[in-house]
């Protein structure tokens, strides 16, 4: 990689590296000293052991026999923080190359590269640093930028969790999109159908309606899996299509449509069902608080509760879970229901907090973004929340990058995709950064409590 511009300081400055890290700390044990155990802790060895401990936190073993689902969960949740961080750096470097190559000035300089290579680097450096600076300032550079970041992050956190929770039970919830639509439709319907209710009743009613609609939409594939073994990937994809088409139809009916217009746009949500803003001129609203509170609740549920213990056990080894008296079918059904509820709330937050009315395609791929968010969060709850905030920042920063430097917003998608590719392919990261295999293996990780 000798010819590429030096990696920007920009992406390392503020947002990213702290996030996955913070996630792991949150996941960590209240008590981690196993000192009183009957072990080989002769004094002379203590120092060596501590050193090895540091190095080999993410140690692979020859795995127990595992099915695909278990391996998948282990691979995702077992990716080390190191891989995630490196994936991140790699994605920004490759993204930088893409920016540079698509830039006119750089292309020109490249034309006489052999004559004066420095021109190419200077041109590339200028365009890449300008783009990344715009990305950072556009997401964190001021009150309104931060507000936009939080607005974008709100549904991403929720749909990320909607994927992460089932993932921990060994399920791949592709159905976030349909669940977002279900939640948004019902929340919106309640939001404009009962004008005149006081806010303290109307808003919770609409939110709860959205949550329950999403939950129902997640429960269906869950219960199908429990009863018939139908694969959730198939059923949720189907339910996504059903959701998209049904909502398009419903929006054309008088139940939703504005009577005097013909286009598929719903009536506006009443003031009393709108998520209040903190400051009138900024779009950020109570939705972000709800998302973070739900994050805390889900953290407790998955990492700290008895239900979560069962969930994790089923996800990691359904045989042992069954043998120990757990009920994988019921757990699977519950995990999908909770996932659906979270995605439904995401839909509600979009309609009640930002858009104010339902349009076709209002979900805008939020459910699929959730998959990316959950993968980057390594299936951990803290990590997913952090990844949601980060992707929110990328989204809003990307918009101002496009406005200011003309770099296409699609670049943000490229970077997101690159991050995931690098996270999903530790081998690639390992090859690039020459990290020893044993430090990166995904099979098993020495995890603290609650992971």
């Amino acid at each position, binding site marked *: 990689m000798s010819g590429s511009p030096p990696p920007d300081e920009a992406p390392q400055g503020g947002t990213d590296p702290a996030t996955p890290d913070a996630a792991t700390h949150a996941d960590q044990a209240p008590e981690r000293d196993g000192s009183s155990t009957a072990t080989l802790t002769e004094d002379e060895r203590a120092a060596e052991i501590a*050193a090895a401990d540091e190095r080999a936190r993410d140690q692979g*073993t020859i795995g127990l026999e595992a099915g695909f689902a278990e391996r998948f969960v282990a691979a995702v949740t077992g990716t080390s923080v190191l891989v995630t961080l490196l994936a991140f750096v790699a994605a920004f470097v490759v993204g930088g190359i893409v920016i540079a190559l698509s830039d006119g000035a750089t292309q020109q300089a490249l034309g006489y590269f052999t004559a004066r290579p420095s021109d190419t680097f200077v041109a590339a450096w200028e365009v890449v640093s300008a783009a990344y600076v715009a990305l950072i300032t556009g997401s964190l550079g001021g009150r309104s930028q931060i507000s936009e970041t939080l607005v974008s992050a709100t549904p991403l956190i929720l749909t990320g969790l909607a994927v992460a929770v089932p993932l921990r039970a060994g399920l791949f919830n592709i159905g976030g999109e349909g669940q977002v639509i279900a939640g948004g439709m019902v929340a919106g319907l309640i939001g404009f159908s009962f004008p005149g209710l006081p806010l303290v009743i109307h808003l919770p009613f609409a939110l709860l309606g959205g949550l329950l609609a999403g939950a129902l939409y997640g429960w269906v594939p869950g219960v199908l899996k429990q009863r018939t073994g139908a694969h959730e990937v198939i059923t949720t994809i189907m339910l996504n299509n059903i959701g998209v088409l049904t909502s398009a139809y419903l929006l054309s009916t008088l139940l939703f449509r504005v009577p005097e217009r013909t286009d598929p746009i719903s009536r506006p949500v009443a003031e009393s069902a709108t998520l209040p803003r903190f400051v009138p001129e900024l779009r950020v609203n109570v939705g972000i608080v709800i998302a973070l509170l739900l994050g805390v609740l889900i953290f407790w549920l998955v990492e700290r509760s008895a239900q979560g213990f069962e969930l994790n056990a089923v996800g990691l*080894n359904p045989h042992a879970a069954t043998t120990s008296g757990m009920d994988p079918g019921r757990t699977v059904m519950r995990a999908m229901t909770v996932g659906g509820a979270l995605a439904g709330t995401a839909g509600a937050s979009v309609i009640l907090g930002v858009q104010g009315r339902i349009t076709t395609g209002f979900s805008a791929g939020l459910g699929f973004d959730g998959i990316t968010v959950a993968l980057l969060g390594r299936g951990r709850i803290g990590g997913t929340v952090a990844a949601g905030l980060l992707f929110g920042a990328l989204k809003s920063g990307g918009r101002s990058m496009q406005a200011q430097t003309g770099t296409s917003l699609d670049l943000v998608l490229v970077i997101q995709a690159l991050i995931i590719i690098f996270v999903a392919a530790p081998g690639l990261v390992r090859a690039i950064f020459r990290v020893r295999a044993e430090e990166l293996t995904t099979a098993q990780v020495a995890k603290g409590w609650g992971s």
Partner: protein
Amino acid sequence: MRLELRGITKRFPGVIANDAVDLVIEPGEVHGLLGENGAGKSTLMNILYGLYAADEGEILIDGQPVELREPDDAIAAGIGMVHQHFMLVPVFTVAENIVLGVEHTRRFGKLDRRRASREVGELAERSGLPVDPDALVEDLPVGIQQRVEILKALYRNAQTLILDEPTAVLTPQEADDLFEAIRAFTGEGRSVVFISHKLGEHRAIADRVSVLRRGRIVGTADPRETSEQELANLMVGRPVSLVVDKPPGSPADPAIEVRGLTVENAAGTVVVDEVSFDVRRGEILAIAGVEGNGQSPLVRALTGLQPIASGEVLIAGEPVAGRSRKQILRGGVGQVPEDRGRDGLVGEFSVAQNLILGRWDDEPFTKRQTLQFDVIGAHARQLVEAYDIRTPSVDTPAASLSGGNQQKVVVAREFDLPIDALVASQPTRGVDVGSIEYIHERIVEKRDEGTAVLIISSELDEVLALADRVAVMFHGRLVGPFEMPVAKEAIGSMMAGTDPELAMARGGER
């Protein structure tokens, strides 16, 4: 080929698995490796096979230092290894599995099946490990699958073959066949590293035995001149008693009652056929038998994991049918599953989490739906101490413990609480002699607490050591139970299905 390991050191988080190990494997020898659970045997061999990188030390082949970065390097250098968990493709045939990766292909990359099958057949014949090259691996019993693994290494022209606890899954007869094959193999100047916890096997097959203790080589012995007792003492570092002294029990009322139990497998074949027996509180009933004669479905039916086709099972007077597994287990049943990796542990969970696997939502581990980590940790530390589980900490993932220590985690968890009935399958599989002694003592202790203990074991010595009464399972039917003492040979021949009594019992069927 002369293999030499020099100063091999390997550290894992919290443990030094190998500590400056020197080991020489001479051509033509069977080199036994003996050591307690967690002593570092598998780790050392995994290093030799290129699966782990040593932190320090070097490996020499015929005096030349070599770098073995991955198994392919080791295979190319003439080293083969058979792990305890086989790595075969179940839906492939024997021949396909064996040639996989080094296959000869015809035009368009089509596998030359006929040639593979012929070559494998010849190899099997030559090496004294007969197997049908065209059989599907998933249809084969474990013993034969292991043969396939060995043949796979031989097909790649291994000069040194590493066998990690090969006999743990074999019947005595299969083990003898394996020993025959090992002798033939080393007769041609090739060498074998043989890991086993069974001292008698080392005496039967090994030319030299190296003993590992806590990662270090503590001695090398000639097994023909060293008694089992001496080997055991060397390995554990203290005198061990190889026989449990078991006072006679005082059986009371039955806590496990099985009446005419019939179980069918998924295909509808009867796998447990009209089995009836009782286990009384305060007694140990051992069911002996070669694996695959219906023991597993019997156990699964007893604990509610598999539906009952007809008949009845009562535990502590309550029928098992119609209750959920959770109710059955919490009602006072302890279980040691035969496949601990699959059914007994969640590998990625910590030792502490695994120690509450069956009781995760009970007080005091859970209060108001919230896991009580301090209680769970303290509980784990206490059991780790009590059962001498060798682990760097209670937060270590169970999968990274050595096999025997994983077994101790399961045993500790299931024995911790007062229970009515204990159903233990192969309770000491893969466990070292010191720990066998310990687990056997705990089982007897459980019995004396008034638990009805059912042991399923294919290990005759274990049956003889523990049983108050013994029964034998053969082809889904139960022979016995008989009051102990019963002669070892008698049980052995009943296991083979050749005993006249057994013939009488099965007379009507064939």
